[in-house]
């Protein structure tokens, strides 16, 4: 029982709810070492995804991902817009026109997403960015031999740990890098949102 376009659309709607719930938390994290817009940026982006899905659900999971990607690119701005947008765009390409996403497609999508973020943002693990959540997530997902829900659960757990690992880091990429040493001691907002989104996807998959 893979994930259809309808399922993925529903998962993104749930993710939008999670983003709304955590909007203020993400704003606060970004206020500490950035400019305080990350939560609002994602709120705007995911609300726009919901609006786009309301208009029409694309036929394949890949097409849903592409719609989500272009929506984020055109509605979010900031660093997160192009980074998450590119991630979803590459994930969409990785999934191709498969009718359903199974565990293999999910791993391929996650790998492609990470590749997209790194290609655009040029961050390495340890730079205190979303890459610190996404890199272990991909590794964990790849290591799992199980269902889609199991793959995503492993990815989400690893992303969460990865996000936590950003706390002591001194940022070398993104806006937090301007703070130098003062960026240490704070959770990176983008790493946190990556962990939240993966957790939301995992929960949706587990619940189906």
């Amino acid at each position, binding site marked *: 029982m893979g994930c259809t376009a309808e399922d993925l659309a529903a998962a993104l709607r749930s993710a939008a709810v999670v983003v709304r719930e955590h909007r203020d938390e993400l*704003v606060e994290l970004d*206020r500490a*070492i*950035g*400019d*305080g*817009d990350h939560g*609002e*940026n994602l709120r*705007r982006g995911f609300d726009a995804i919901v609006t786009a899905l309301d208009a029409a659900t694309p036929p394949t999971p890949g097409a849903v991902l592409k719609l989500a990607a272009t929506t984020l*690119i*055109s*509605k*979010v*701005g*900031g*660093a*997160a*817009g*192009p*980074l998450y947008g590119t991630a979803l765009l590459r994930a969409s390409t990785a999934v191709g026109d498969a009718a359903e996403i199974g565990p293999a497609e999910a791993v391929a999508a996650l790998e492609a997403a990470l590749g997209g973020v790194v290609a*655009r*943002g040029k961050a390495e693990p340890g730079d205190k960015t979303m890459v610190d959540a996404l890199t272990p997530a991909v590794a964990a997902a790849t290591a799992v031999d199980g269902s889609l829900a199991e793959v995503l659960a492993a990815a989400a757990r690893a992303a969460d740990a990865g996000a936590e690992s950003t706390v002591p880091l001194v940022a*070398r*990429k*993104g*806006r937090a*890098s*301007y*703070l*130098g040493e*003062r960026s240490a001691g704070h959770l990176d907002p983008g790493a946190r949102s990556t962990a939240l989104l993966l957790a939301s996807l995992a929960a949706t998959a587990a619940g189906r």
Partner: protein
Amino acid sequence: MLAVKKIINDPSAVVAESLRGLGLAHADLLEVVDEPAVVVRVDAPVAGKVAVISGGGSGHEPMHGGLVGPGMLDAACPGAVFTSPTPDQVQLAVQRTDGGAGALLIVKNYTGDVLNFETAAELAAAEGTRVESIVIDDDVAVKDSLFTAGRRGVGGTVPLEKIVGAAADRGEDLDGCLAIARRVVANVRSMGLALGAPTVPHVGTPSFELADDEMEVGIGIHGEPGRARMPVENAEGVVARLLTPILEDLPFTEGDRVLLFTNSMGATPLLELYLAHGIAERLLAERGIVVERRLVGPFVTSLEMQGMSLTLLKLDDELRDLWDAPVRTAALRWGC
């Protein structure tokens, strides 16, 4: 009820509503397009002229919308507050202003701005428009390195946009404009400091908290904290603290001719700004640096942040003449 002390309605509609007012106030100069939001010179495209386009998060007014007009920008792309604009906005700006000579995108060096403008440039190129980008990174408060996001673009953006706008106006082609832009970027340095934080409408609380006797040194223009927090100093101390790293960075040396731009971050009143400007002029004179042109006022702001920045641009005859060339925008106007 609305607890935030701002003259706004719905926080998520601030930029759109503000642009409406901008459009009504300056209908002789500019047109405001919405969805995606772009501020365009009213007579765009100007045939045969390189289009000069900039943009960035909102909240830095008059930059960039107030700098649209003859002799300066052909279009500005206002993002959400403190959030870089999206590629769609930039793409539309290029479409609306390309007069056949291509477009130069002026991008402040922030990851978000660079990525979104980059995407837009690709899209525009795919449509057959020649597009070049110049990234400005004049903030000496940030240590530069190949492994980081690098320096921020701050106050130097205004002289850059003015001078490139003048170059495009006098008929310089895209390569010529880009070369002049690079010369400005190579010769301009800035640094800023805050005594109080701005409040972003959709956040509702100040971007950082400062004790009654503290200031943030080395701040950017998005309410992000600075490099160091320290006890407040008097104006002599503040100006020296900004000027010294700027001078050492390029470096600026005896005999150099400069444009001195003393900028208010928003809430610092002109009374204080002119006072600081006077000190900066004296310190420069003491070092034998010749202030040939000056700009004083709130031009690159961070909402109601209290504080100031200094920008120094090393001038040559050509850059000076381009600075002097006529300009007609909401915020900067002379010669016409």
